[in-house]
């Protein structure tokens, strides 16, 4: 094979690619945090809600976690216009990934909710806390600490998984990589650089999450 690596043309596009990384981060933060809020409500509903609500949440989780995210976004982007709902590609991706992370996070957070010690709940009730105060001071710190590892894993999974946005023309990191490589035709170099950027993003995310866990929840997580 007589292939000469030429990174020059890719490096010239580095600011453009890093801009794409920023878009990736925006997608992930939006879908993760909205998914976490909705997932917390889903988890609480699944544990404490009335039976019809519990069944409805279970059905939602089963449906979403057993169909590919790609297919879900396809439906949002290409099928909904037939029903008169026209979404931009970015909106379709954000909605699709939020629906997805809501389902996964419901299950992850549920594991944390059921692990809250009844003894602490009794004490909180005995101390006359309101439901919201119990959630805020007793349940959430415990849940966050218990599910910190799967939550961090999911965050990374979501960051890498968000690359499917490129298929709908969203110019996040992978989307911009496709743009760059289709112009310079340096596919190997372009995607090597993009892979390194992804690794950089996930490392930064892992370390920030580990630091957050250590400071806020006394979780002794290690990145390496």
């Amino acid at each position: 094979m007589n292939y000469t690596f030429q990174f020059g043309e890719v490096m010239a596009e580095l600011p453009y690619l890093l801009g794409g990384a920023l878009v990736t981060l925006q997608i992930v933060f939006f879908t993760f945090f909205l998914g976490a809020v909705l997932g917390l409500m889903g988890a609480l509903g699944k544990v404490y809600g009335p039976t019809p609500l519990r069944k409805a949440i279970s059905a939602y989780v089963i449906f979403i976690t057993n169909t590919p995210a790609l297919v879900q976004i396809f439906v949002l982007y290409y099928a909904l216009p037939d029903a008169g709902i026209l979404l931009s590609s970015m909106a379709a991706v954000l909605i699709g990934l939020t629906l997805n992370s809501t389902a996964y996070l419901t299950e992850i957070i549920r594991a944390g909710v059921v692990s809250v010690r009844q003894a602490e709940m009794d004490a909180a009730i005995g101390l006359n806390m309101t439901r919201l105060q119990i959630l805020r001071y007793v349940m959430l710190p415990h849940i966050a600490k218990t599910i910190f590892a799967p939550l961090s894993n999911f965050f990374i999974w979501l960051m890498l998984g968000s690359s499917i946005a490129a298929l709908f023309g969203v110019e996040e990191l992978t989307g911009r990589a496709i743009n760059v490589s289709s112009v310079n035709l340096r596919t190997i170099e372009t995607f090597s650089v993009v892979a390194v950027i992804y690794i950089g993003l996930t490392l930064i995310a892992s370390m920030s999450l580990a630091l957050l866990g250590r400071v806020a929840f006394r979780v002794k997580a290690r990145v390496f």
Partner: protein
Amino acid sequence: MTHLDVRDLACSYGSEKILKGVTLSAEKGEVVSLIGPSGSGKSTLLRALVGLTLPSAGEVRVAGKAVDYSSRKSVRELRSQLAIVFQQYNLFQNMTVMRNVTIAPITIKKRPKAEVEALAAELLARVGMEAKHDAYPEELSGGQQQRVAIARALALQPEILLLDEVTSALDPERVNEVLDTIRRLTDEGITMLLVSHEMSFVREVSTRVVMMDDGKVVETGTPSQIFDSPTHERTRDFVGMILKH
């Protein structure tokens, strides 16, 4: 006026009747002890009083005012007057000792943080835990955790204190440190309702002893009536059995 008045209180877990009509009362500043075999409903009675287990029948009056357990407002008002200490301490694992003691007065009673922390420091000193403000519960022994739990209950400045077998999860050497703490409280005029198997302690601190069996009150009397001349056979058996050891 009778401080705590319980009439015909009944309580069930599913179809199983745990309390079958319990009647007892405590005057202000009294220390009423509940004794009786395991499963007789002593702990359930304390849990029912704070509304952790809902009573199915009967009446509870605190300082003459009837409690409506179906009304959240009424139950919240009730809980603002009493505090409960559990057998298994039930401290918040994710909070320091200081935070465990101060969280309720700060977040629920909305009192100034500095004032509450000063009170908490005083209470922790009183239970001999002044050196452990920043420790987490997992770093403490059972006896230490229980003393923090007592300080946490006292920080609510309750009028009635419920103590549910507070020494039975502790090893024998730690029992006395907790009993000493409670002994000191009896001089302060807080009405106390305590469940205990420490008979000599019960005899020493109680103004009244209530013998329970099978969800009912068998006999009520002064410590000397119950321990020296019980009138019911069940009480005689139980007291005789325990004092033999």
